[in-house]
C-alpha cells in the first residue's frame, strides 16, 4: 500500500503529463504519413493510434454505406462500431494490395450492414456468403492511387447516371438491399429473367465506364 499524500505525487503527475504531451503529436504525425497497408500491419499488432488513422481516412465512406443500407442512423452507428472492431480483430488477415484497403473496408461494411437489417435465419446465409467472398474481396483491386476521392466519386456518379433507370434500380437493390435475384424479382414484380438481364447489362456497362479508374 502506498503511504503518500497528494502533494507528494504532484511532481510525478506533472512529469508524466509533460512526457505524454511531448510524444503524442510526433507519433500521430508519423502515423498519418503511413500507407494503409502499413497502418493495418500496426493495427494487427494492436496499435490503437493506427486504427484511429484508418478511422479518420475511411469513417465517412463506411458510415455512408452503413446509412444507405440500414436507413437508420442508430443502426449505422452500431455497424460502424462493429466494422472497426472487425478491423481491429482481423487486420492480421488483410493482404496488402495497392488501394485495396478501401475495397476491404467496403466489403466488411456492406456485409455487416446487410447483416444488421436481416432476420436471424437470413443472417446465417449472409455469413456464409461473407466467408465465401472474403478472400476474393481482399484480392479485388482498388482504384488508381493517383486519383483523388473526388475524381472517383464524380466518375462513379456519372456512370450511374448513364445507366437506364431500371438497370440502375436493379443493381442498387442487389448491392445495397442484400436481396437475391428471386427476391428482387418479387420486389419489382418482374420476371426473374428480366432481373438477371438488367443486372448483367447494368454491371457490364458500369464496368466499361469505370475501367479507367481501375489500377
Amino acid at each position, binding site marked *: 500500500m502506498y*503511504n503518500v499524500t497528494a502533494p507528494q505525487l504532484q511532481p510525478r503527475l506533472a512529469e508524466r503529463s509533460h512526457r505524454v504531451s511531448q510524444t503524442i503529436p510526433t507519433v500521430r504525425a508519423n502515423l498519418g504519413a503511413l500507407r494503409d497497408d502499413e497502418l493495418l500491419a500496426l493495427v494487427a499488432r494492436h496499435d490503437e493510434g493506427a486504427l484511429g488513422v484508418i478511422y479518420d481516412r475511411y469513417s465517412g465512406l463506411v458510415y455512408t454505406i452503413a446509412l444507405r443500407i440500414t436507413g437508420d442512423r442508430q443502426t449505422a452507428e452500431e455497424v460502424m462500431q462493429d466494422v472497426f472492431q472487425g478491423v481491429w480483430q482481423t487486420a492480421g488477415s488483410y493482404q496488402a494490395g495497392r488501394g485495396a484497403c478501401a475495397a476491404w473496408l467496403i466489403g466488411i461494411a456492406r456485409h455487416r450492414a446487410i447483416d444488421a437489417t436481416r432476420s436471424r435465419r437470413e443472417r446465417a446465409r449472409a455469413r456464409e456468403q461473407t466467408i465465401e467472398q472474403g478472400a476474393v474481396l481482399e484480392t479485388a483491386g482498388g482504384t488508381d492511387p493517383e486519383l483523388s476521392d473526388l475524381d472517383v466519386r464524380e466518375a462513379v456518379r456519372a456512370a450511374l447516371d448513364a445507366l437506364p433507370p431500371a438497370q440502375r434500380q436493379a443493381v442498387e437493390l442487389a448491392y445495397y438491399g442484400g436481396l437475391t435475384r428471386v427476391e428482387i424479382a418479387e420486389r419489382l414484380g418482374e420476371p426473374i429473367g428480366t432481373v438477371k438481364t438488367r443486372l448483367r447489362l447494368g454491371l457490364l456497362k458500369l464496368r466499361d465506364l469505370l475501367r479507367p479508374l481501375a489500377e
Partner: protein
Amino acid sequence: MQPEPSDEITDLLVAYALGVLEAEEMQRIGRLLDERPELRPSLAELQATAGLLPYGLPLAAPPADLRQRTLDHAVGRAPRAPSAGAANAGRRLRGWLYALGGLAAAALAALAFTLAGLGSARAELAATRERLAQVEQQLALAEGQLAAVLTEQSQLAQAVVGADSVSALEGAGGLATALQSADGEVVIAARLPPLAADQVYQLWVIAGQSAPVSGGTFTVDSEGYGVIALGPGAAPSGVTLAVTAEPAPGSPGPTTPILVSGQLS
C-alpha cells in the same frame, strides 16, 4: 482482353460480384471457377466495379463523438455505446444546464449525461432481450446501474440545492467538482478517461500526512462522467480528495498515479 463469356455464365458472375447468389448457386460458381480459371479475371473486374458503387452515394458525415465510441468498442475498452440520438438528448440537456452557470450546473450536467447513456443502454437491452438469451444478464446489470444512478441523482440534487461550498479537483487526468452540503455530505462529479473493463475509479480521502483512506469506487459513462457521494463527516473541510484508477473492485491503497486531486474548502 478475354472474350465475353456466355450470358448465362456472365449472369452468375454478376450475381456473385453483387453478392446476390442463392446458396445453391454458390456451389455452382465454385465448380465453374475451378473448371474455367480464365473466368477469374472477369469476376475480379466485376467485383472491383461493384466495390466502386458506394462512391456514387452522397457522402454522409458520422457524428464527431462516434470516433471515440467506435475506438473504445473496437479495442474492447467498452461495449457498443448508445446511439448518438440518445446522447444528443443528453447534450441538449447539458447545454441547458450549463446555461445556469457555475460548477453546480456542470455537476448536474454530468448526471444528465450519465442518465442519458444508461437510459439508452437500457432501451437497447430491452429491444435485444427477445433475441438473445445472454442479454438477460446484461439487462440485470444495466438495471442495477440505473438504480445506482437514480440514487446518485437524488444525492446530487440534494447536494447541489444545499451546497454550502464548492471545491475543484484538478489534474492532467481529468477534472472534478466536489459539492459540500451544510450537513457535511460531499458529492463529487468527475469527468475522466474511459476505464478498462477490469478497472474502477477510486476516491481517496487524505487527511494531512495520513495514509489515503478509500472513499469508495465509481465508474464513468461513455462520455466520461461519473458521480460518487460521501456521507456526512467522511470528508471534513481541509482534507485532500484524490482519484486514481484501480483494478476492480478497488484497492486498499492507491496503486496508480493520481488523476485529479484537490483540497476541500
